[in-house]
C-alpha cells in the first residue's frame, strides 16, 4: 500500500498526494520503504508525511451470467447508482462491447475469446468452453488495470464473430468485468473485490428467450428450445459452478403465488448474500438473523393479484453461511416499494427512499416491478458502499501508520 513507484509519482496526474510538513517541493519524488524508517524519521523530529495512493487503483467487480439474462440491465442500474450514464467509448469501434461512465468502466469478457466464431465451429466448442477463452490475457490485463495501468484490450465483434483490433482502456475508479467466466480462473478470481452471479432458472430462461426471440424471423419454439438444450451441458459444467465463489447471487425462479405459472412474468427472486465478507453487510428484514415471512399486503397496503410475499433468513449455500432475502410477486405502485424499503435494514442508502428513487428513475427497465430490479438496485448500493469503504481504508492506512 505505502509504495508509490517513481514513475507514477512523477506522472502529471499523480495518484499519490504528498503532504510534506516542511521542506519538500511538491514535485519531488519521495520513496517510502518501510514503516520503521518512517517512524525513526519522526522520532528524530525530522519530517512526517501523509501519502495516499487511492484514486487511480480501481476496485474490480465481477458479474457472471449467461447471455440474454439481463446483464446489461444490471449494468445500467449499477452505473446509475454512481451517477451519469454509461456510453460506448467515443470515436472507437462501433461494435465495441465496453461501456464507460464517469466512475465506472464495464468490459465484456467475450473480448477474451481465443477462438473466433469460425474457430469454435471448426473445433466443435462453444463460447462457454474454457478452451475458447484466453484466461492468461484476461488475468494479465485485469491485473494491470488493478495496478492503475492502461491496457490494449481486444474486441470480440458479436456481429461478425471476428476478433477486431484492440481498444485502449484507461483505469477507472470502478472496473466491472461481466460475462460468462469472471470467476472461472482462480487468478482472476483473486483480483475481484466483489463478485455477483445472476442465476436464472431454466423455466425463466426459457420464458425470457421466447420473449426475446419469438418475433425474430426464423426462430420458433423448437429452435429456442434446441439452442438452450444444446448449450446446457457446457453451461452446467463451466458457468454454473462459479456461483459458489460469488459474494452475492441473484436467483430468479418461477413464482409460487400462482399455481403452475409458466409465463415468467411474475417472479420469485432471491438475493443470497455471503456472511463475513469485509465491507459487505447483508441486508435484512426486521430482525437480523431471524427467519421471517412477511406479506406486506393488508390494511395498510392494497395489492392486486397475486400480491407480494417476502422471506428472510439465514441459510447455507455451498457450505457457506449466507443471508437470504426473497421477494415473490410484483409491485403495482410506488407506495408499495417505499413501504417495503422502510422495513429493510442495512441498505447502504444515503437518504431515506433512495432505493425507491433509483427504481423510479428507471421505471422502463425490465424488472422494475419485481425483485430483479429491487435486488439489482440494492446490490448497486452495496457496491457503492464497498467502494467508499475501500477508498477510505486506503487513505486511512498511511495516516494511521504515521500516528504510531
Amino acid at each position, binding site marked *: 500500500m505505502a509504495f508509490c513507484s517513481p514513475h507514477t509519482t512523477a506522472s502529471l496526474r499523480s495518484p499519490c498526494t504528498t503532504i510534506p510538513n516542511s521542506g519538500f517541493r511538491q514535485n519531488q519524488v519521495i520513496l517510502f520503504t518501510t514503516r520503521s524508517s518512517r517512524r525513526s524519521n519522526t522520532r528524530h523530529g525530522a519530517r512526517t508525511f501523509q501519502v495516499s495512493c487511492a484514486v487511480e487503483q480501481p476496485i474490480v467487480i465481477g458479474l457472471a451470467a449467461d447471455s440474454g439474462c439481463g446483464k446489461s440491465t444490471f449494468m445500467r442500474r449499477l452505473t446509475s447508482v454512481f451517477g451519469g450514464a454509461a456510453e460506448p467509448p467515443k470515436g472507437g469501434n462501433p461494435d465495441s462491447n465496453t461501456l464507460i461512465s464517469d466512475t465506472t468502466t464495464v468490459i465484456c469478457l467475450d473480448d477474451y475469446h481465443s477462438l473466433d466464431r469460425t474457430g469454435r465451429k471448426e473445433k*466443435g466448442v462453444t463460447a462457454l468452453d474454457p478452451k475458447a477463452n484466453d484466461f492468461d490475457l484476461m488475468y494479465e490485463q485485469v491485473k494491470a488495470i488493478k495496478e492503475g495501468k492502461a491496457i490494449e484490450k481486444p474486441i470480440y465483434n458479436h456481429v461478425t464473430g471476428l476478433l477486431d483490433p484492440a481498444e485502449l482502456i484507461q483505469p477507472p475508479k470502478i472496473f466491472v468485468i461481466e460475462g460468462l467466466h469472471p470467476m472461472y480462473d482462480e487468478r482472476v478470481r483473486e483480483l475481484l473485490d466483489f463478485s455477483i452471479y445472476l442465476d436464472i432458472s431454466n423455466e425463466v430462461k426459457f420464458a425470457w428467450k421466447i420473449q426475446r426471440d419469438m418475433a*425474430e424471423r426464423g426462430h420458433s419454439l423448437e429452435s429456442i428450445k434446441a439452442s438452450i438444450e444444446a448449450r446446457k*451441458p*457446457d453451461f452446467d459444467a463451466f458457468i454454473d459452478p462459479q456461483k459458489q465463489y460469488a459474494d452475492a447471487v441473484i436467483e430468479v425462479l418461477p413464482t409460487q403465488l400462482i399455481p403452475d405459472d409458466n409465463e415468467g412474468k411474475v417472479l420469485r427472486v432471491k438475493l443470497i448474500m455471503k456472511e463475513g465478507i469485509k465491507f459487505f453487510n447483508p441486508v435484512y428484514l426486521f430482525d437480523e438473523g431471524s427467519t421471517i415471512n412477511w406479506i406486506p399486503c393488508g390494511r395498510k397496503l392494497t395489492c392486486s393479484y397475486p400480491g407480494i410475499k417476502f422471506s428472510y433468513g439465514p441459510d447455507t449455500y455451498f457450505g457457506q453461511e449466507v443471508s437470504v432475502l426473497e421477494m415473490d410477486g410484483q409491485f403495482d405502485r410506488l407506495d408499495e416499494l417505499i413501504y417495503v424499503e422502510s422495513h429493510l435494514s442495512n441498505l447502504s442508502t444515503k437518504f431515506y427512499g433512495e432505493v425507491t428513487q433509483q427504481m423510479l428513475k428507471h421505471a422502463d427497465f425490465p424488472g422494475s416491478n419485481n425483485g430483479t430490479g429491487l435486488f439489482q438496485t440494492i446490490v448497486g448500493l452495496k457496491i457503492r458502499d464497498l467502494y467508499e469503504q475501500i477508498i477510505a481504508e486506503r487513505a486511512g492506512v498511511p495516516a494511521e501508520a504515521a500516528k504510531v
Partner: protein
Amino acid sequence: VAGSPSTPPELAQKVTESIKQAEETCAGDPEGGECVAAWDEVEELSAAASHARDRKKEHSDPLEEFCEDNPETDECRTYDS
C-alpha cells in the same frame, strides 16, 4: 411482415441462416460438438440482434433525435436558469 421490424436486416438474415445451419448440422449428428457450436452461434447472434433492437429503442423519440442534431432550434432550446 418480415420478422421483427427493428432488427437490422443484415443481422436478422444472419440469425435466420444460423438457425437453418444449426438444424442441418444437428440432423446428422445431434450430440456432436459441431451441433452444439452451431446452436451456440444462434444464441450469440440472437443476443446481438436483441442488443441492436434495444439500442434502437433508445433513439425512438423523433424529437429527441432531431434535437441531438439541432439543439439551437426553437423546439429544442433548454435553459437551466
